């Protein structure tokens, strides 16, 4: 497997890439996000699987996102996501409104190598009304039974943070199986981890179920506390005070800029 530096890892994300990232509690590669901001990789099509928080807000606030496809963006207890809200009001980004299970279904279609997935619900919503890429078809197995189908979504890049990988490239994802779905669906999967294990994570049949095989992993970089200020399951909780500080500062473009200057420096130091 290819163990690389954080800078080299994010260099694998080209401008304009369709980039899939997980939701806050799954393992968000925040250190890599800082490196991406420093690099200035722009024109991204960001896909939140299925929602995002500070990561999406930062990438949007820094002007790196051309298209944002998500079910929601929120800072949780710290309130609304200010740069996302501002960009939505200004229409300075192209917003593709989604609903969580439809994003999962679209990735699943790519995982299965099929062009679409059916999904119940959604009919009659404005989510559907604004999705020119979704269709309503008649269920071929029943009479007069409309059902939504969503096309397969195969991101160029999946990027997430996990507790550990082994030196063979296997990555522990625990029960955050959306990380596996992202990797199956994506063309390239980039992972940051807290540490590298010398022994294979697949060696123990008991916890092998929580491992993403190396087959799906393109590059791995070590980033200690790489999800900070978000938390990492089983490792450390979210830094609520820091997220609240961000929420406060990011209310204005100037405050956001000041926050980011320090945030990006931190990534340079790491």
């Amino acid at each position, binding site marked *: 497997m290819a163990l690389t530096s954080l800078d080299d890892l994010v260099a694998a994300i080209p401008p304009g890439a369709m980039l899939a990232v997980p939701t806050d509690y*799954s393992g968000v590669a925040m250190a890599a996000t800082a490196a991406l901001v420093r690099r200035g990789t722009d024109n991204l099509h960001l896909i939140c699987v299925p929602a995002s928080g500070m990561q999406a807000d930062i990438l949007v606030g820094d002007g790196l996102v051309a298209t944002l496809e998500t079910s929601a963006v929120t800072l949780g*207890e710290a309130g609304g996501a200010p740069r996302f809200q501002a960009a939505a009001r200004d229409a300075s980004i192209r917003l593709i*409104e989604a609903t969580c299970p439809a994003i999962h279904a679209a990735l699943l279609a790519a995982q299965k190598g099929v062009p679409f997935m059916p999904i119940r619900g959604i009919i009659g919503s404005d989510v559907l009304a604004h999705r020119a890429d979704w269709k309503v078809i008649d269920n071929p197995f029943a009479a007069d039974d409309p059902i939504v189908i969503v096309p397969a979504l195969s991101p160029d890049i999946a990027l997430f943070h996990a507790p550990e990988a082994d030196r063979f490239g296997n990555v522990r994802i625990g029960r955050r199986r959306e990380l596996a779905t992202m990797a199956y669906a994506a063309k390239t999967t980039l992972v940051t981890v807290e540490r590298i294990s010398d022994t294979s994570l697949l060696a123990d049949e008991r916890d092998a179920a929580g491992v993403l095989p190396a087959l799906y992993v393109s590059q791995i970089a070590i980033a200690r506390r790489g999800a900070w200020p978000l938390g990492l399951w089983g490792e450390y909780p979210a830094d609520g005070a820091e997220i609240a500080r961000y929420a406060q500062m990011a209310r204005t473009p100037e405050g956001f800029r000041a926050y980011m200057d320090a945030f990006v420096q931190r990534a340079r130091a790491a």
Partner: protein
Amino acid sequence: MQAATAHEGLIVCVARLLAGLHHVAVGASSPIPAAGAMLVRAQDEIAGREPLRISILGSEEHNFFTNGGVELFDCAAQGRIDAFFLGGGQIDGQGNINLVGSGEYPRTDVRWPGSFGSSFMYFVVPRVILFREEHSPRVFVERVDFVSAPGTSAANVERRGGPHALLTGMALFSFDKARARFRLESVHPGFTAKDVGAATGFEYDAPASVPQTAESDAGTLTLLRGRVRRELAESYPQFASTLPEWREAA
């Protein structure tokens, strides 16, 4: 015994709406729904019934799913979740909910987080409880600006779920799916039917004389202030600390 606080009254209302169910899922930042579910579970256990199963989303300790974030939706689609809570920046008289923003989409005046899974869950969970503490004409509008999920669907659209009740800081409504219309069931202590009318931007049905929401009995409050408060504190310590506490005599 101290009378129920407003939050306690809501928790007891939630519990009444969940009584007799098997499995409820609640959001990570929904302490009142979670507390109501925990109250039902405690009552079930005391009564020797199979206790209500509670899945708290995003929680590490109380999340019993092992197949990633999609499992909630799959589980609901399989009919294994009886009740779920949804809110919204706007809710209208037809039960449509808006979690996206007010004003003309996409250039919304106020932008909210987004629809999350509502566009799906509203269709598949039999008993969706709309819960919004703020009861104002800004929330309860005649017509939402963006339909994250519709309150009702055409007859040919497969749908076994939808709004069951609307619980606010002021009142409890039921929902008539056939007529796509709310009905005021009761008004919480301290409010009148007239207050509700003034604070609601949509039309609804109401009985000639609107009852007050039933008071919580002492046994329920004791359970809530003791065991349930302790259980709640594990996941929602800050919220639990705002509730009255009852300790068994030493």
